[in-house]
């Protein structure tokens, strides 16, 4: 029916996008307006993933070390995207990039060194990108939660500052709750693994003929790596962002309109 696998894929992508847009229209009827965000996200998503597919097709014949450049590019993009969740906090992009680089980078490097992740581009890039993407989401959740906690507790924070408290101590408990809430999805993913969902990586391995038991165990390995990198990212970003919420004169800069 389709002349090639690519044509089949595009047709499938169109059906999936139509379904997503139908949900957006349904939300619109309930006065929840996601049209422009969803349309842009769908368009960006297909363009970006096709671009990555094209790059992967080219990289298949390239030396293995070239995948490092692609992963670094992904980290930079992830830092910029998730920093938007920390609107009005100066230095959020830098904090996000450093945290994702350290969290995802360290876990990917250790697991590659230990032989858990194969250095082949077809293995390192997909697994590395999963780790980076999840670190990005966790970082975004942590910063977003931190921002809203600080904004809604500005009075308590400034009261503590006015009593001579150190700035970072005044937001310590909000940072802790941000770390905790940002890790809920990663922990729930691990908890529900195999019961509620069978992740894409395992599905792909099964479709490509891998041993089902090995596919299952390797999926656990990936989800555990995601938890480790997400946890490290969240921990680092909330530790670093605490000081960015204050000016050098210990004034809370993350406040509502004056």
């Amino acid at each position, binding site marked *: 029916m389709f002349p090639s696998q690519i044509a089949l894929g595009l047709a499938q992508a169109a059906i999936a996008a139509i379904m997503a847009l139908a949900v957006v229209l349904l939300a619109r009827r309930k006065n929840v307006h996601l049209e422009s965000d969803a349309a842009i996200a769908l368009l960006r998503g297909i363009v970006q993933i096709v671009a990555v597919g094209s790059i992967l097709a080219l990289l298949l014949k390239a030396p293995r070390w070239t995948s490092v450049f692609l992963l670094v590019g992904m980290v930079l993009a992830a830092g910029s995207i998730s920093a938007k969740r920390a609107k009005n906090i100066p230095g959020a992009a830098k904090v996000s990039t450093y945290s994702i680089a350290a969290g995802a980078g360290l876990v990917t490097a250790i697991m590659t060194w230990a032989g858990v992740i194969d250095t082949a581009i077809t293995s390192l890039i997909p697994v590395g990108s999963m780790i980076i993407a999840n670190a990005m989401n966790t970082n975004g959740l942590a910063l977003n939660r931190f921002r809203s906690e600080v904004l809604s507790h500005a*009075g*308590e924070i*400034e*009261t*503590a*500052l*006015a*009593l*001579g*408290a*150190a700035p970072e*101590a005044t937001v310590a408990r909000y940072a802790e709750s941000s770390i905790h809430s940002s890790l809920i999805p990663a922990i729930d993913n691990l908890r529900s693994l195999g019961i509620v969902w069978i992740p894409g990586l395992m599905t792909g391995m099964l479709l490509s003929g891998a041993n089902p038991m090995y596919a299952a165990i390797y999926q656990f390995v990936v989800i555990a790596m995601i938890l480790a990198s997400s946890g490290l990212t969240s921990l680092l970003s909330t530790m670093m962002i605490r000081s960015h919420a204050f*000016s050098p*004169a*210990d*004034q*809370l800069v993350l406040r509502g309109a*004056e």
Partner: protein
Amino acid sequence: MSAPNHKAQLEAVLRAEKLGREVAGKTILSDISFDVATRDLLGIVGASGSGKSSLLRLLNRLDEPTSGTVYLDGRDYRQLPPRDLRRRVGMVTQRPFLFPGDAATNLRFGPAQRGETFPDAEIARLLERVGLSGFAASEVSVLSGGEQQRVSLARALANRPEVLLLDEPTSALDEESKLGIEELVGSLVQDHDLTCVMVTHDRDQARRICNRVILLEAGHLIRSGTAVEVLGA
């Protein structure tokens, strides 16, 4: 920045010199100068949006002036570590923002920031001074608005400040609690040799307890003097 008047500095504990603040190109305060001496209770009066609370926030550097500065005991406050400055210039806000726990926990907070312990006897004495004898172990969440504001005052005093800033401390209280807090503030200023600056929108309150008043309008100081001179009899 112009040189401060040294004679005035010696007399005034707190001296604001040409203070101004702009946010995103909008002038919040402009060219505000005044001084306050020991046992003075200076009222900052003005309509809503006139910049009263914004001015108070500049005095303990919770916000940064975009022009001018403040001298504390003759020293430019930008030369002081902010935490030390805020220990010396205490603040009580309209909402008390008490920390979860009992009254004693709240009173220990300030000294604990400097690694100091605040003895139980001191807590009892301070609570008695603000009219809350025997309230040390009381959960702050069950206290009335007036009692919470008294705990907030005692918490600020536990830091042994030289200057006390009060931002509409009675605006959320009933008439009886309001008069009680006014009386308490007046006596604390005298007994503790405090220098006090109080924001109020209530002109009668300013007449009752402030010995000096400044009137703000749209971020500008319009008048200053005794309460009667500024607000009339």
